[in-house]
């Protein structure tokens, strides 16, 4: 439990140190529809909801009611960020989307988003399937790519987690919110190092899982879509996400103190050197428990999920946009970011960030696009749109 000595008893982790890449800007976005703890109390009862609220610390979270996709939030977020940065769309050379809720099983959401954003076709684009650890993994992946000579890139993260949640599952429904964030990165020879630590342990896969929908179990059979009361007392189907909160907490307590210690060791920093610790916003209770286990000063641990909930891979950017915007817009801060959860997967980074371009959190109309793959093709001149007929009047 001593972050200063991670190698003694913690899980093995890899480290990577990258220089010359600058985090230039960041923005987050939510749908305009939301639910409050009072709404949840109607489902779970006042008494239980008081206890749940004490654990989650989530007073409201944004919840799509229309079937919005994460990319529908990434699109306006990226537009606003690029405009505020003053970056030409043609200058973006890589677009990486981190999500567990892709628009389609194929093609990659990043490919669809490249076209919707009007970015150059001279661009590398792909998806990464990660959640809680996804922002830091994405930062590492994009920075590594850029080290090969790219100038500018966008990292889009986020999920519409409520779309795969049972409204009757109290371990999930009152905790998760829908949201997405976009970060802009730029090559800058003067940018200081980013020191990453990453790890994986697939033994944790059953503890946070959406069992049906991939190729292992195809969706929409009556036996997988029927919601039943489960052993943990929650009501859900196999097509709803399942989380074993107890396993998540013990995994977190067994991993994060060593992750934090490893990052500090690798960066040559002490706890005192860090201005802000921004962890995956798993739940307020987990954040406070982890902060205590790591012996971190509570004032340095950012908790920014009261109005957004747990927003999966976007939760670290949401906490930064919500709680650190003024500081990061005007100056630079030494940050330790760490994501941990679904996989199990974990990743952390020590970096000096700022000043950043950070537009206000966007509230986007909860209205899916009419043509998410782009407008229908115009008919070729001289061709007829009339349906051919075989008979005559």
């Amino acid at each position, binding site marked *: 439990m001593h972050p200063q000595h991670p190698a003694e008893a913690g899980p093995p982790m890899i480290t990577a140190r990258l220089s010359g890449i600058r985090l230039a800007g960041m923005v987050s976005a939510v749908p305009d529809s939301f639910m409050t703890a009072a709404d949840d109390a109607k489902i779970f009862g006042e008494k239980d909801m008081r*206890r749940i609220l004490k*654990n989650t610390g989530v007073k409201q979270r944004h919840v799509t009611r229309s079937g919005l996709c994460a990319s529908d939030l990434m699109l306006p977020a990226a537009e606003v960020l690029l405009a505020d940065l003053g970056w030409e769309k043609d200058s973006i050379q890589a677009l990486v989307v981190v999500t567990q809720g892709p628009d389609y099983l194929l093609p990659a959401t990043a490919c669809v988003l490249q076209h919707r954003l009007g970015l150059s076709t001279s661009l590398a684009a792909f998806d990464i399937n990660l959640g809680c650890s996804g922002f830091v993994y994405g930062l590492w992946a994009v920075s590594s790519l850029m080290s090969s000579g790219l100038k500018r890139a966008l990292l889009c993260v986020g999920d519409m987690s409520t779309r795969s949640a049972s409204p009757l599952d109290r371990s999930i429904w009152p905790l998760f919110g829908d949201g997405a964030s976009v970060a802009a990165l730029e090559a800058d020879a003067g940018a200081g190092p980013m020191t990453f630590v990453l790890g994986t342990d697939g033994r944790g896969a059953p503890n946070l899982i959406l069992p049906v929908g991939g190729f292992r179990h195809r969706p929409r059979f009556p036996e997988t879509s029927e919601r039943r009361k489960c052993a943990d007392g929650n009501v859900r189907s196999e097509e709803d996400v399942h989380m*074993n909160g*107890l396993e998540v*907490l*013990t995994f977190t307590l067994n991993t994060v103190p060593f992750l934090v210690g490893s990052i500090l060791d690798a960066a040559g920093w002490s706890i005192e050197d860090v201005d802000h610790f921004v962890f995956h916003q798993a739940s307020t209770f987990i954040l406070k*428990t982890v902060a205590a*286990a790591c012996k971190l000063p509570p004032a340095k641990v950012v908790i920014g999920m009261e109005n957004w909930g747990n927003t999966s891979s976007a939760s670290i950017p949401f906490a930064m946009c919500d709680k650190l915007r003024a500081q990061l817009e005007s100056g630079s801060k030494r940050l330790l970011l760490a994501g941990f959860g679904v996989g199990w997967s974990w990743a952390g980074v020590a970096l000096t960030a700022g000043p950043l371009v950070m537009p206000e959190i966007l509230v986007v109309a909860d209205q899916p696009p009419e043509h998410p793959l782009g407008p229908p093709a115009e008919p070729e001149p001289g061709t007829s749109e009339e349906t051919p007929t075989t008979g005559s009047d």
Partner: protein
Amino acid sequence: MIEAAPGTAREDHSLADLEGWDSLAAVSFVAEVNARLGLTLSAKRLTEASTVRDLIRLVDGNLED
């Protein structure tokens, strides 16, 4: 944690019958043990506990390790 007055839970109490003992209470129990004793209990073994005595043994066993 279970919102019961101190001393009301006996060692032979079944957790299933203990009012307020549920997944939220179990999570709080793990956090409390971690904060007070620096131990992280096994989620699997905690799930297998059926009485208050099992919880005590689980913590005692970890302390002896």
